[in-house]
């Protein structure tokens, strides 16, 4: 070893090593290598998302110390946090911005894995657990949005919980289950709070554990075009080379977060009132904008079926399609595989265009 016998640190190391097997862990870390090729940059996105998630866990726990989950107190407790608690504005703004950045890096991670076909055998379960994490993250975003109990949150939740209500047969039951009643009320807020701070973190821990374990087990996937040209020419040790590059990214992200939180602190708006009309210009979080805009543009009836049913069921089918991609794309280099790549690119284009329309079109038109 690199340490001198007899030093206190060495003694502690040896003592711990005998009991928990530190040498095995060191061996494991040293063995891990990352392929170097022209797509290596995409390998950093998973770690970046994980880093932002850790920020969410930390700031989320801090917010719990002041937040009160009821329709009567939620808005006021955040008002207090933003105005009276020292650095309360900072913690909440970082939580809000890191959530947005995390969804953004997660989408990039998702699409890069999709287009580089990293879901191929034997990584199907890595893909499925990743899709689970994507769904959990979006649910985190949706439930967290309601917690300030402001006007925007109230209507976003009214619409958002109405959407599963559109699903044929089980819809009305699902809507009641989500809302904790027939309408969006304080019961919904309490329910979303429980989901946001207990159920989702527990599930995420399970899915994340599986996801990370599988990444260790299988190593990084080498994209098909690199494989065709003879595989990665070089490997980079994970520790410390790759990890240090990771850290550069994380520190940059932290600096961006601090700047965003300081210059664009999270807003609170007006308290939710179930007996006020939806304000003009109401919109969901940007990552739901493409769905929102689609629902806005669909006509009331398509071939005799209500437009929103077509929209909601359509998004459900599209989600299922992406979930099952590893089982649909089994013959590398075949026409069908190239079609799937185009479907992925079309999905990205659709999301970007619809999101842009959502932000550019006047809300009253």
């Amino acid at each position, binding site marked *: 070893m690199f340490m001198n016998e007899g030093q206190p640190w060495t003694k502690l190391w040896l003592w711990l090593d005998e009991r928990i097997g530190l040498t095995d862990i060191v061996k494991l870390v040293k063995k891990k290598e990352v392929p170097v090729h022209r797509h290596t940059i995409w390998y950093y996105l998973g770690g970046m998302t994980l880093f932002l998630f850790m920020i969410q866990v930390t700031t989320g726990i801090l917010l719990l110390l002041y937040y009160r989950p009821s329709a009567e107190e939620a808005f006021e407790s955040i008002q207090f946090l933003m105005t009276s608690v020292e650095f309360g504005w900072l913690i909440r703004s970082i939580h809000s911005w890191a959530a947005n950045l995390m969804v953004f890096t997660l989408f990039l991670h998702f699409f890069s894995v999709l287009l580089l076909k990293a879901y191929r055998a034997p990584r199907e379960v890595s893909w499925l657990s990743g899709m689970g994490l994507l769904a959990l993250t979006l649910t985190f975003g949706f439930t967290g949005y309601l917690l300030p109990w402001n006007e925007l949150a109230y209507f976003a939740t*009214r619409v958002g919980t109405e959407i599963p209500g559109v699903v044929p047969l089980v819809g009305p039951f699902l809507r*009641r*289950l989500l*809302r904790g*009643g027939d309408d969006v009320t304080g019961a919904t807020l309490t329910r979303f709070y429980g989901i946001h701070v207990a159920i989702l973190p527990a599930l995420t821990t399970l899915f994340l554990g599986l996801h990370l374990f599988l990444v260790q087990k299988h190593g990084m996937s080498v994209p098909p075009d690199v494989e065709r040209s003879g595989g990665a020419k070089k490997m980079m040790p994970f520790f410390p080379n790759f990890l240090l590059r990771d850290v550069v990214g994380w520190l940059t992200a932290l600096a961006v977060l601090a700047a965003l939180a300081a210059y664009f602190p999270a807003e609170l708006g007006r308290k939710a009132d179930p007996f006020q*009309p939806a304000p003009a210009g109401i919109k969901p979080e940007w990552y739901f904008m493409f769905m929102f805009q689609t629902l806005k543009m669909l006509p009331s009836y398509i071939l005799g079926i*209500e437009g*929103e049913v077509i929209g909601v069921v359509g998004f459900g089918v599209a989600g299922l399609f992406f979930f099952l991609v590893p089982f649909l794309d089994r013959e590398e280099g075949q026409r069908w595989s190239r079609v799937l790549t185009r479907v992925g690119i079309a999905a990205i284009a659709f999301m970007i265009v619809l999101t842009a329309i959502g932000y550019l079109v006047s809300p009253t038109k």
Partner: protein
Amino acid sequence: MAEAMLGPEPSRRNFLNWFLSTTAGAFLLSVIYPVSRYLVPPKVEESTSRTVTLSVKPADVKPNSGQIFRFGSQPAILVRTPAGELRAFSAVCTHLACIVQYRQDLSHVWCACHNGHFDLNGQNIAGPPPRPLERFTVNVRGDQVVVSKGA
């Protein structure tokens, strides 16, 4: 060999497997059933009132304007048409349940969430709403506005 010819005989192992798996199944059911029932919120008594007397006076509602009022647990909208007639509708948009508002510049009812338009009879005239707004009956009794559901 003899056993195979006689066909499968219930062995002690089979019995134990059956016994353990039904026990495990029953245990799981006895956990899942109460938890799933617990998750479904209980029915709350809906206000059955079919009539509501508003706190606004008829004269306070100017022509070409509208305002939200409570009809039981649901929001509803009281509209005075540019011609001066009072009308009331459910304020819950038939698309995705946002609360509608009166647009003075368009002189009709509008939903801000997905740009749905309803005329002064509650008919869906543009945008994604699939059905008209439910219409209520408005009666002016002296200084009071009384809104009632159905005939």
